[in-house]
């Protein structure tokens, strides 16, 4: 019963996306306030029904209703309750319903928080969001329905993929989706501005918090995925440049460019075309990512569904949304040319380079990810493009960008003079170099020039990002949230770079065989396997070993890696034993039993690896702080703003 109710609710939700789209867009176009009000009601209604539909799906999972095909494919009676809920979005159909729910929630958010913006604009935004929701609803109803029944009902389910039975992986998709879908809001704002034929700095002020929140969630979602892969997959890697990972990273890079470009449009009324294009591209890349993962076009260990039929639908949807928006861009963008300029050395210049280099990096990743497909389409050899390519090529645009970041942060608008700051920056650069040498050569030993370069850049950015807040605080100047947020976010980036550079330069791993009672040495630590025992979990059976780690005779840690076999799907999974510290991880993973109680083990020493995710978290925190800035909560009307800007001096 619940499945049918859920299905029906979804149909109703779809029906409501249509008036949302129609009345939202036409109500603004023909200036009919009644229609606009109807659109707002449609948003609320659509959200309610989507939520109900999602709740029904959760209900059937919770109650182990194996007469629902999707539940039978992704759950099991022995699956712990928490993961029964996570299983709702564990595969293609359910994850799309989650997407729809997140999409509806964002639309509701726009409708609710649009007090400061003209109704004309928000109505169009809601209309565009309605079109997007309609597309997804249709996609689910026509090709990917999670409510299909299975008669006769399965006695039990196929179980959730054991890889997904993990708390981090339970929240990773929702976080990612909030990010992906969140970029539909700037996208909708861009389309709205193009339809209206008006794009000004006030528009940028409205859009900026929305873009920043989406970016924050995407940052967290990607970091969670990376962290999960590290401790769950057993090989200690944190990024594999897998097509699906790239599909999440590309919108992030463009999103980063977007929030910076929005800053220029807000403050100076410049970069309008850039901002417009970036707004469109960020969400387009989200949609492209969805396409890549679900159509079978690209091989990936993450790929959800390899169904060309579904792929065709998404591709068509992609063409309508992205093609439509870019067509609008070709038509309207010339309208938005600004007649103002800036000096060659100025904040605008730096941010121009920022935009360009981030876009270049995104294109590099796009080319690398789709190249195999291009080659195949032309009937040429199949090639593989993997980590060796991406790791090297990604740095080509990114390294210059990181070095431009430290001076860029201190460049003034319109015309920058580095007179007052260049000594400080110079000193910080030298300090950074010294620190880099101390950390690398001093603490770990020489690795390569790139290690020094990477660490120097990171330390320089870290130092530079603290200069402004500290100066302001010391001189009693105002320290608005936006400045703090910017510094925190850049500092977080520096931490990330320190983590990534150090761990990749100095990690040590080894494979060996060990049995209870044996000790081995690795990276300056001694590892002793003390025992091996059987352990039973709720839906798995495991062999657990206890490994004691010592250094110079003193005990450092005791870890308990496991090798699990999940009873239903019968996959073997490794649960690594990790001793985590702020400055290094020790990682022990069990491989295969070698006979006579001996097991093959992989031991890894990972210095500074936690900084990777800690840095990402700090970046997201910076974003959060920035949107708390007072100016987003002030109600600014169009007239007030023009007067203020005309009279005020821009810093």
């Amino acid at each position, binding site marked *: 019963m619940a499945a049918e109710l859920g299905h029906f609710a979804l149909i109703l939700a779809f029906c409501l996306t249509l008036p949302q789209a129609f009345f939202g867009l036409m109500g603004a176009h023909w200036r009919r306030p009644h229609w606009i009000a109807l659109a707002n009601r449609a948003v609320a209604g659509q959200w309610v029904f989507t939520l109900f539909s999602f709740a029904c799906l959760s209900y059937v999972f919770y109650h182990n209703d194996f007469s629902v095909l999707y539940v039978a494919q992704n759950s099991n009676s022995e699956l712990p309750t928490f993961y029964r809920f996570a299983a709702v979005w564990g595969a293609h159909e359910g994850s799309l319903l989650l997407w729809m729910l997140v999409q509806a929630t964002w639309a509701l958010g726009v409708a609710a928080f649009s007090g400061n913006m003209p109704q004309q604009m928000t109505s169009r935004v809601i209309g565009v969001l309605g079109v997007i929701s309609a597309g997804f609803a249709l996609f689910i109803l026509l090709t990917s329905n999670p409510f299909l029944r299975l008669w006769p009902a399965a006695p039990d389910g196929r179980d959730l993929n054991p890889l997904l039975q993990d708390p981090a992986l339970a929240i990773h998709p929702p976080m990612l989706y909030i990010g992906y879908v969140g970029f539909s809001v700037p996208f909708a704002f861009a389309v709205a501005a193009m339809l209206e034929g008006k794009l000004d700095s006030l528009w940028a002020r409205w859009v900026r918090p929305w873009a920043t929140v989406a970016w924050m969630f995407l940052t967290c979602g990607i970091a969670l995925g990376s962290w999960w892969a590290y401790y769950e997959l057993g090989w200690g890697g944190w990024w594999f440049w897998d097509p699906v990972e790239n599909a999440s990273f590309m919108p992030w890079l463009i999103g980063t460019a977007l929030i910076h470009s929005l800053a220029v449009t807000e403050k100076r009324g410049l970069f309008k*075309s850039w901002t417009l294009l970036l707004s469109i591209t960020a969400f*387009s890349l989200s949609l492209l990512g969805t396409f890549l993962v679900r159509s079978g076009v690209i091989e990936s260990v993450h790929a959800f569904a390899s169904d060309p039929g579904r792929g065709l639908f998404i591709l068509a949807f992609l063409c309508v949304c992205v093609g439509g928006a870019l067509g609008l861009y070709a038509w309207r963008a010339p309208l938005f040319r600004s007649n103002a300029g800036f000096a060659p050395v100025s904040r605008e210049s730096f941010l121009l380079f920022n935009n360009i280099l981030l876009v270049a990096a995104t294109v590099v990743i796009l080319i690398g990810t789709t190249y195999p497909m291009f080659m*195949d389409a032309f009937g040429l050899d199949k090639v593989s493009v993997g980590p060796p390519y991406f790791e090297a090529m990604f740095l080509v645009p990114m390294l210059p960008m990181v070095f431009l970041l430290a001076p860029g942060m201190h460049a003034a608008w319109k015309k920058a003079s580095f007179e007052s700051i260049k000594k400080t920056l110079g000193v910080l650069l030298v300090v950074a170099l010294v620190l880099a040498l101390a950390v690398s050569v001093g603490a770990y030993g020489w690795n390569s020039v790139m290690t020094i370069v990477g660490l120097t850049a990171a330390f320089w950015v870290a130092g530079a990002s603290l200069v402004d807040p500290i100066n302001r605080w010391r001189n009693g100047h105002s320290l608005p949230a936006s400045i703090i947020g910017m510094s925190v976010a850049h500092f977080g980036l520096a931490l990330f770079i320190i983590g990534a550079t150090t761990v990749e330069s100095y990690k040590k791993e080894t494979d060996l065989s060990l049995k209870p009672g044996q000790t081995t040495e690795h990276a300056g630590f001694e590892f002793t396997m003390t025992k091996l025992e059987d352990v039973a979990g709720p839906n798995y059976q495991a062999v657990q070993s206890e490994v004691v780690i010592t250094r110079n005779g003193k005990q450092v840690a005791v870890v308990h890696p496991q090798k699990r076999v999940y009873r239903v799907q019968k996959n073997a999974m490794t649960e690594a034993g990790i001793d985590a510290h702020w400055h290094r991880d020790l990682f022990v993973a069990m491989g295969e039993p070698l006979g006579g109680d001996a097991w093959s083990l992989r031991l890894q020493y990972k210095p500074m690896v936690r900084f990777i995710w800690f840095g990402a978290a700090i970046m997201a925190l910076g974003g959060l702080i920035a949107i708390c800035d007072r100016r987003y909560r002030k109600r600014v009307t169009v007239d007030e703003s023009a007067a203020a800007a005309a009279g005020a001096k821009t810093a």
Partner: protein
Amino acid sequence: MLKYLLPIGLFTVLAGFLYFGLGRDKQTLPSPLIGKSAPIFELARLDDPSKSFSNSELAGKPYVVNVWGSWCVGCRQEHGALLEIARRGEVPIVGLNYRDDRDQALNWLQQLGDPYVVSAFDDEGRAGIDWGVYGAPETFLIGANGKVLKKHVAPITVEIWEQEFVPLLPQAKAGSP
């Protein structure tokens, strides 16, 4: 002015490629061996470990090599087709028993029938690597001149044999491409 058309232009190109990419078969790898001389293997015979067999013994005549294993579900699926192809007697089929257990493999042939003139026992998979085997079952057609004319990955059917292999038989028999 033109620069504003660039984004939609690029997108159209991308969309075109994606559309193309949809229909393609992702699983099959093209074989670099086509047109080259078939790798020579010399392995113990499956039925008699004391005797060895090498495909060089078949030089001057076309033959088919079928990579199989008793552990392989697809091989079971295609077995009937192989028996039929063997029955037609156009070309001899040599089996390459890949990464298998000798007893289990012999049992399998006994239960299901043996379409092979002989099966070579490649338990370590070394010959498989030379032939670029990545997923059994795989079927190769070798010409009389020793060159690889065709490779088919996945279970073979009589239709596939008739549509894709049989047309190549004259070329295979002629001995020169």
